[in-house]
């Protein structure tokens, strides 16, 4: 990569940061408890909209992993999400009514909050329906992983998005508050992911899974990206470029080994395909606030009304992280 290209990326990074700085005005603090953040706390950042019934399980899942403080941006919820979050002691909440799309799907807001509060912390950036799984997550807390990453001089950790789905039509099993979503959506695709290198940013572009095979089998290039880098030892100069798919500086995107070895990596179990999904797809289509003119939601909407079942006889039933590692979806790397 030439000097000029490197410099252009540097400019791009600065632009994203300035943009995030300007977007800070869209955020109003509803509960700012960031003074309670201690020096080596693990932080979680999340943008949400109308996720009230998912939150209890989400919070307890990440509290169990060892997240010390949550920082939420609430984009105009009207289902009690805000009231629920302000009551929690380990949560700071900002609200906004501004356009989700024009904040680049929440990236600008979170970039700002991370710039302000996450410097020097290990930060996890996830959506309310993403559940982080990493090697040994059943026996070692997240702190063990971040300590190991620190000792190995690794700054960012990859976790591919793994779409989980129920057997049968997704509306059949209603999700109720506090329930583990993977009691319902316990299936996934184990071996139909393809990847290519993004030359500009150096990240891998991963596509595939149940969404690609059901909704995008005639337009594979439009299938959603599944590569994610949610766990980063944050520095105020860093910026997420597009969702958590890639970051700048581009060295942070080098979460894969190019010389035959395996680096350690995890998965984000994606609990998107529950009974709430159909409603959400309808709403999002009307709001047109999602990526690529909500193309994805349109495809879902059409697909879901025609054939609402992702399950096939080769679907794998989720057991634990070891299963994912054996299937080659994630790796322990040299963490033993």
């Amino acid at each position: 990569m030439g000097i000029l290209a490197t410099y252009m990326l540097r400019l791009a990074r600065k632009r994203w940061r300035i943009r995030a700085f300007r977007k800070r005005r869209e955020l109003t603090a509803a509960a700012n408890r960031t003074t309670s953040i201690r020096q080596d706390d693990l932080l979680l950042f999340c943008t949400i909209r109308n996720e009230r019934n998912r939150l209890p399980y989400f919070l307890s899942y990440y509290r169990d992993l060892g997240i010390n403080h949550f920082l939420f941006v609430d984009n105009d919820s009207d289902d009690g999400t805000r009231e629920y979050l302000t009551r929690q002691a380990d949560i700071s909440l900002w609200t906004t009514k501004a356009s989700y799309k024009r904040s680049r799907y929440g990236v600008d807001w979170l970039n700002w909050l991370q710039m302000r509060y996450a410097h020097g912390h290990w930060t996890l950036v996830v959506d309310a329906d993403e559940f982080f799984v990493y090697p040994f997550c059943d026996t070692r807390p997240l702190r063990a992983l971040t300590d190991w990453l620190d000792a190995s001089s690794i700054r960012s950790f990859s976790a591919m998005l793994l779409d989980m789905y129920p057997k049968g039509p997704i509306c059949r099993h209603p999700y109720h508050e506090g329930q583990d979503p993977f009691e319902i959506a316990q299936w996934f695709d184990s071996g139909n992911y393809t990847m290519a290198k993004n030359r500009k940013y150096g990240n891998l572009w991963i596509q595939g899974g149940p969404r690609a095979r059901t909704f995008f089998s005639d337009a594979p290039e439009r299938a959603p990206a599944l590569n994610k880098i949610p766990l980063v030892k944050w520095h105020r100069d860093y910026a997420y470029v597009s969702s958590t798919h890639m970051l700048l500086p581009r060295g942070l995107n080098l979460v894969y080994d190019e010389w035959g070895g395996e680096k350690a990596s995890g998965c984000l179990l994606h609990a998107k395909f529950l009974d709430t999904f159909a409603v959400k797809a309808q709403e999002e289509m009307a709001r047109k606030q999602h990526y690529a003119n909500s193309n994805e939601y349109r495809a879902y909407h059409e697909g879901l009304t025609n054939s609402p079942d992702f399950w096939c006889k080769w679907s794998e039933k989720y057991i634990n992280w070891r299963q994912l590692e054996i299937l080659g979806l994630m790796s322990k790397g040299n963490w033993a």
Partner: protein
Amino acid sequence: MSTVGFVMLCHTSFDRAAQVARHLAGHGCPVVIHVDRRVSRGALKRLKRDLTGVADIRFSERFSGEWGTWGLVAATQAASSLLLREFPGVRHVYLSSGSCLPLRPVPELVAYLDERPKTDFIESVTTEDVGWTIGGLNTERFTLRFPFSWRKQRRLFDAYVRLQRRLRFRRRIPAGMVPHLGSQWWCLTRQTLSAILDSPDREENDRYFQRVWIPDESYFQTLVRQVSANVESRSLTLSKFDFQGKPHVFYDDHLQLLRRSDYFVVRKIWPQADKLYRTFLSEDLASQPQAEPNPGKIDRLFAKAVERRTKGRAGLYMQSRFPNLNWENGMTAAPYSVFQGFADLFENFDTWLGKATGTRVHGHLFAPDRVEFAGDERIYNGALPDSADLRDYNPRGFLYNLIWNTRGERQCFQFGPRDKQKIGEFLARDPHAQISVISGAWAVPLFHTNSNFSDIRKEAAQLQKIEADHLRVLRALTVKARVRIWTLAEFIENPMEPLQTIIDEISPRSSRRLTEAPRMADLTGFGQFLQNLRNQGMQPTLMGNFPAGDDPRPMIARRGRPYLVK
């Protein structure tokens, strides 16, 4: 008081260090703690307060012990001198760190050392014999100069080493000294240790080792050879290193593994591994049922981790393993076979092949309209769909996914000039591919079709061009696949022998002879068909020599003894 004293080098997690020190002192072992110079005064104060009232604990003079520098040796010297001076009853000095944890009851260690009062336990290997050093520096640790930090000034470090090598610079190793290396965690007797510390040459030795790289792995390891008569070259401390030379850390889930090791102390423990500390520092550890020692298990675990990190799983492409060209270490996960032209020449070839070899036989995986999985499946192992668009979006991805998903079962598939050709180059480069081609066999279905001859002629010309290009790829010098090419004419002359060869290669252990041959398509008049193509101005070249009117003999004639016994 016990005859074993501990020197403990600490720089972080002082509450754990204090806990271990208290445990050791509680069993009568005096402990001298060295706290790194860079540690804040407050932390030191807390540690000292934590340990007030515990007898037989001392704090030694503080040095700054950055990794790989002299400070660690200086700290060890100061602390062990103090230990020897203050506790005259001590016979063995055990060097440990703040993140070490005793694995066996202290009395067991004391008894073990009491039985071997004159033995020094220190890993000490001549530089020629070590294979584990970082950066490839063995002997050169002793003969070059290292003014730059390996951790913080890596480029300068490397450049300076290169420069010295080029200039053939060498430091002189003091006379009578044979460089040895080894783990820095040792257990020495008072006699040996004091001989090193009170040596008349100490000043000279220290001056020399101050400029040796990573002296804590060589100072005592080298000098012990001069003074001790009874060196047992192994460490009593279990410590494992990863491929970067960083120590592996032990967690709660290693409990069973550690119980089965036969070491006395382990390094290093994650400070928050409560269960490990609780278990191994409990008073009734001795009364717990002993697990059968199996130290090999730990070795295997960590060797595997290093291998996974450096070589990875062959044929796996995933979020954290995406090898560059020629660094794949196995482009696909397992061997597979590609058949080109066989399905055109033989009727129901796939069924026959499946029966003969017991493998999974697909149709044309790269057919233009859909993926022809075995059994006409719409979706295959790993939820791989049959969509041609998805496959063509990343044909390699499709293939290595298929081979990865079906590990343990050999895959065979048909290929031909009617298929999407993009994968051809990948197939040719993959050592796992066994490619068998009957060139020109695509003409057989054309011969049997019921279409206008001008269309046939056009299609034949096109297919011939595609196949010729593919054959050129397969004949390139860089090909790694196992490629066999016959012309159609060659093949039908004697079909059983090539078939037998291919099948033997697929399943070498089943020494079955082929008894049933696949049924060949009727080729009566095929020579004339080719002549007609020629007459229309197209030159069919890939089939080999088929004189018009000379129809091939039916295969039945050769059925009796199809294969020559070796």
